[in-house]
């Protein structure tokens, strides 16, 4: 990026250029180290693993308690919103990888989370949180993301890079 150039006439200039060059290299390495530190420090302990429902069950014991981001399709009939008391609400629903082959099912619980408008049958959900010992997936506060139907189209049934296979994104 630095567009510094130097001429070759005279020993002095050459030495000066060399020491300048060294300065730039040292400075560059220091800056790079600072940036890498910034990134590593920010990521330490804060990254999640992305899993589909099947992937989760394949390694359930290892993944229990870990910070996860689960991708799945919502089963409409399973959505339940309960007011426990004035301060507490519980939203629960099941997600699967494939509605045509709805097993295994992961049960999601989100405490004190308003019911998202897009949470409905066949919606694609991304849920951040962790699975507890009972195999229930507890969503983080604000960790319930419903896919925004940006283009509002039906998806191709095959070739889902997320590993999710479904027939519709969000149907009216």
């Amino acid at each position, binding site marked *: 990026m630095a*567009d510094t150039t130097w001429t070759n006439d005279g020993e002095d200039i050459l030495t000066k250029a060399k020491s300048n060059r060294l300065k730039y290299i040292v400075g560059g390495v220091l800056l790079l180290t600072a940036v890498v530190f910034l*990134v590593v420090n920010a990521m330490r302990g*804060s990254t999640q693993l992305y899993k589909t429902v099947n992937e989760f069950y394949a390694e359930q014991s290892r993944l229990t308690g870990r910070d996860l981001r689960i*991708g799945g399709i919502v089963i409409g009939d399973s959505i339940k919103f309960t007011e426990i008391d004035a301060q507490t609400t519980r939203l629960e629903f099941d997600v699967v990888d494939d509605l045509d082959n709805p097993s295994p099912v992961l049960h999601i619980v989100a405490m004190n989370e308003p019911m998202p408008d897009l949470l409905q049958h066949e919606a694609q959900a991304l849920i951040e949180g962790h699975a507890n010992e009972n195999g229930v997936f507890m969503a983080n506060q604000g960790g319930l993301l419903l896919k925004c139907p940006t283009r509002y189209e039906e998806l191709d049934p095959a070739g889902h890079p997320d590993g999710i296979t479904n027939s519709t994104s969000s149907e009216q």
Partner: protein
Amino acid sequence: MIVDIGYISLLLAFLAAIYSAVAAWYGKSKNEERWIESARNATIATLPLLLVSSAMLIASILRNDFSVEYVWRVSSIEMPTYLKYTALWGGQAGSLLFWNLVLAVFTAVAMANKWRSQKDLIPNALIVISLTQIFFLGISAFVENPFARMEMVPANGNGLNPLLRHPGMIIHPPMLYLGYIGFIIPYTFAMAALMAGKLDDGWIKATRRWTLTAWLFLSLGLILGGRWAYDVLGWGGYWGWDPVENASLMPWLSGTAFLHSVMIQEKRQMFKWWNMVLIVITYSLVVWGTFIVRSGVISSVHSFARSAIGPLFFGFVVIMLLFSAYWITKRRDQLATGNKLNSLLSREAAFLYNNFLIITILVIVFFFTHYPMISELFIGEQGFVGPPVYEKALAPLFTLLVILMGIAPLTMWYRSSAKRLGIAMRWPALAALIITIGLFALGIRHWGALLGLWATAFAAILTLLEFWKGTRARMKKGEPVWTAFSRLMARNRRRYGGYWIHMGVLMMALGIIGIESFQQETQLRLETGERLTLGRYEMELKGMERYPGPDDLLITEATINVYENGKFVRTLLPRTELYTRTGQPMTIPSIRSTIADDFYVILVNWEPTTATAATFRVFLNPLVNWVWAGGFVFILGTLIAAWPDKKKETVASRAAQAALGAAD
């Protein structure tokens, strides 16, 4: 019939683009002007062809012709007419056609211009832009054909999602497209300059307004998208570091770096190589962003239909990168310049730091966005990086950028004395410190926020001083204050437009620090007559109501009285609307907005059986309106900087021509 005309026009546009590339190449190698003119005409002809094609698609939507698959996907008989027009970009295939239309508009306008000062660039520019057109038109014509037919004709279509019926959502995609595609023009001329070996700053000057326009639309797209999220999504936020959002932020970042670093090339003939790299990066990120958004390779909350176009975009980006890298390498000797950085305290050094910070931010955003792919490659598991990680890594860099924004205008070209800089910064730094201590005394203990607020205040004071210094200098010549100020703006649009943009960014920074550091939220079930307290606000539920709205809507609405420090200020009506036909609910927050904060209320739940009680989620979003106000100032500044300045332009182009004549 209508459908056939639409598809044939699309095919003809595709053929015109191929013809243009071939004719321009032939004309260039044989040095025959008429072939180049013919290529130019073919390129311009893509515009009317695509206008016809788009008009035919809209006509099919208006006629509810569900034999066309695209019409069936995005429209329905009941849909209001204005939404049928905007359904042109409501789905994958249509939005690609719309993308092609916008590209044709930009291309035709750019190529209809005679470019007297840059005539030598035209043949190459035609080749480069035609390559881009061939790719996108080819995708539209053969992969994502918006005119494809259904095997069976359904009685009605799917219709557009109610969530997307927000005005912000209707204009937000076209704004982003205009921004994305606008950057294709400066890239085209940069490549043409490389191929022609004409590496003065002619291409930069010639395309400066294009760059600014593209940047303006991209900024507008980002701001409107944020506003939509805040109004509609109901989580009291505006930016979620989602891969699709990042896809539009990244070219904006490299475009910002480019806009700054070209000033060094214009002034000091330095950084030529770097400017080429920046415009190539920006162009590649535009295409790459389209790839991320539409291929679904990274799990995002935006779901696009998956289709075969993913690998095609990937291939195209790789080809264009190789093509650009080839030409930059080939011309590396001409891109190297004799000028060097004289001092680390000069204006050019300040631009260098600016570029370093922005590109570092860009690299980090790129790394985090692609982390799922990268981690899968290296550790075999898809990882994911959430917003807190972005914020933690980027906050220090943004803070440095804000401080630099204040200091940079004080520096001089070539070198500036540390002593002079110190004197100029001393009092503003102290004043900002006093403000920060005042905030501490008021009870703010969030250290990150205090540091950010200090930096913002420091930069804002320095920027305002720049306005004041310029105005005072004119007042000394006897102009009254307002005349002095407005003439200062009019005479130095680029510079003071830039300072307005800086002020807009600083206002947004204030808002972002406010909502990120001090947002409060709570959730509670209230009986009628009960109250809830959040910050200095109190709200009382007065009653609940359910009634039918227009169309098939069923509206559930709460009436809430809001009290500030015990005094009644306003009635809020948060509600949910249910589209009964489709079962799609929509939560509509009700907000009391002031310059200090937003009191943002969402109706969470109401069971008609317990008619007297309802559950609410309430956010207190401090300073958030500074984000929107700052966005407005930002756009205003960009308009000031980009506004045509006829007199200056001709002088500049004459000077450029004279310089060219001398060089020849």
